[in-house]
C-alpha cells in the first residue's frame, strides 16, 4: 500500500478536527473535534509503525504502543473534560465556550476573579460577570435565578 494514502487521510482528518475546534460553540462538540484530531494522529502512528516494522526491521513497535497510550489518555481526557463541562454547566447554566470569558483581558479593570473554584466571592460576582458578556435580557434571567 502506498504510504501516502493513510498520511493524506490523517492530514485531512486532523484539519477537520482543527475546523471543529475553532468553529464550534458547544464545549462537547469541541471535545468531539479534539477526538478527531487524536484519531488522525493515531492513524499516522499505526501506518508508520507498519511501514517501519517492514522497512527498518523495527521490533520495538513504538508506534502501536504509542497508539494504545494515546487511546488511553484520550479516554481519561474525555472523562475529565466532561466532568469539567458538567461542573461549568451546573454553575453557569451554559456550556457555550464563548460565554465563559471571566478571564478575558482588557474589558474591566477590577480585580482578578477566581476561576473554577466554588468560593462565595466568585458566586456573588457571577451575575455581574455574565451580564457583561450577555445581553440585558440575560441579565434579568440571571438575577432572577440567583436571587
Amino acid at each position, binding site marked *: *500500500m*502506498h*504510504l*501516502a*494514502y493513510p498520511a*493524506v*487521510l490523517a*492530514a*485531512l*482528518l486532523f484539519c*477537520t*478536527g482543527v*475546523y*471543529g475546534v*475553532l*468553529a*464550534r*460553540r*458547544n464545549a*462537547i*462538540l469541541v*471535545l*468531539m473535534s479534539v*477526538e*478527531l484530531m487524536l*484519531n488522525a494522529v493515531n*492513524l499516522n502512528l*499505526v*501506518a508508520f509503525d*507498519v511501514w517501519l*516494522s*517492514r522497512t527498518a526491521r523495527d521490533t520495538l*513497535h513504538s508506534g*502501536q*504502543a504509542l497508539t*494504545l497510550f494515546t*487511546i488511553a*489518555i*484520550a*479516554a*481519561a*481526557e474525555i*472523562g*475529565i473534560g*466532561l*466532568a469539567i463541562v458538567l461542573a461549568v*454547566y*451546573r*454553575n453557569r447554566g*451554559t456550556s457555550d465556550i*464563548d460565554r465563559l470569558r471571566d478571564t478575558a483581558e482588557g474589558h474591566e479593570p477590577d480585580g482578578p476573579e477566581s476561576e473554577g473554584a*466554588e468560593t*462565595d466571592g466568585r*458566586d456573588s460576582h457571577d451575575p455581574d460577570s455574565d451580564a457583561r458578556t*450577555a445581553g440585558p435580557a*440575560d441579565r434579568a*434571567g*440571571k438575577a432572577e*435565578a*440567583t436571587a
Partner: protein
Amino acid sequence: MTLAAAAATAAHALAVPASAAHPTLTTAAAETHGFLSPTGVEVAFLLVGLVTFGAALVTVTTRQLVHAALWLVVTLGGLAVEYLLLTAEFIAWVQVLIYVGSVVVLLLFGLMLTKAPIGRSPDADSGNRWAALTVAVAAAAALVWVVVDAFRATWIDLDGPAAGTTAVTGASLFQNWVLPFEALSVLLLAALVGAIVLSRKAKAESSSPPVNSRTITESSPSVPDSRNHTIGGNGPVEGTGPAKQEGAR
C-alpha cells in the same frame, strides 16, 4: 449511518480476497506498482477513507448535536476498519471497544445532561467559522502537499506475517513498554478520582453564610431552572422552554 456501515462492510469484504491473492501478485508487481494500478487493499482503504472523511465533515458541520455524536461513531468505526486494513488488528479492536464503546457513550451522556432540548440548535457554530474554515483549508492544503511530496515513493509492504497481531503487540508492549504501561494505569486512576471529585456536589458550601448557601442549594440541584433561563436568552428556542420545564418536572 446504515449506508455507511454497509459501505464499510462491502469495502472490507472486497479487501479480503485481494489480500488473500496478494502474495502471488506482489512479487511480480513489486517494481511496477503505482498510482495507476492500485491494489485491492488500496482501493478498499480509499473507499473506507472517503466514508470516514465524509462522516468527519458531517460531525463538525451538522447542527444537530446528537447527530454529530452518531456521525462520530461512523468516523471512529471507519478508522477501525482502516487499522484492520493496515494489519493492526489489536489497535482496531481497542479502537472499537474504547472509542465507539465508551467515549461516544460518555459524549452522548454529556450532551443529554447539558443540552436537554434535543433537536436543531442554530447556534452550534460560533461567529468565527469563516476564519476557522480558512485556517483549516490552508492547513489541509499545506499538510497534504508536504505529505504527498515527502512520501511519493514509499510503499508499505503488507505481506508476510501481520505487523500488528495481538501476539506481536502484546509481546512488544510487555517487553519494552512495561514502565509506561504501569504509569498509564496510575494516570487512569488519577483521572477516575479527578472526575469523581469534579462531578461531586460540593458539601462544604452548606456551612457558609445563609444568603450564599441558599443561592447555591437552590441553583445547583435545580438544573431545569438554569437551563430554562439560558434558553430564554438564546431567542429562537424560547417557546419550547416552559414546556420542556413542565416535562422535566
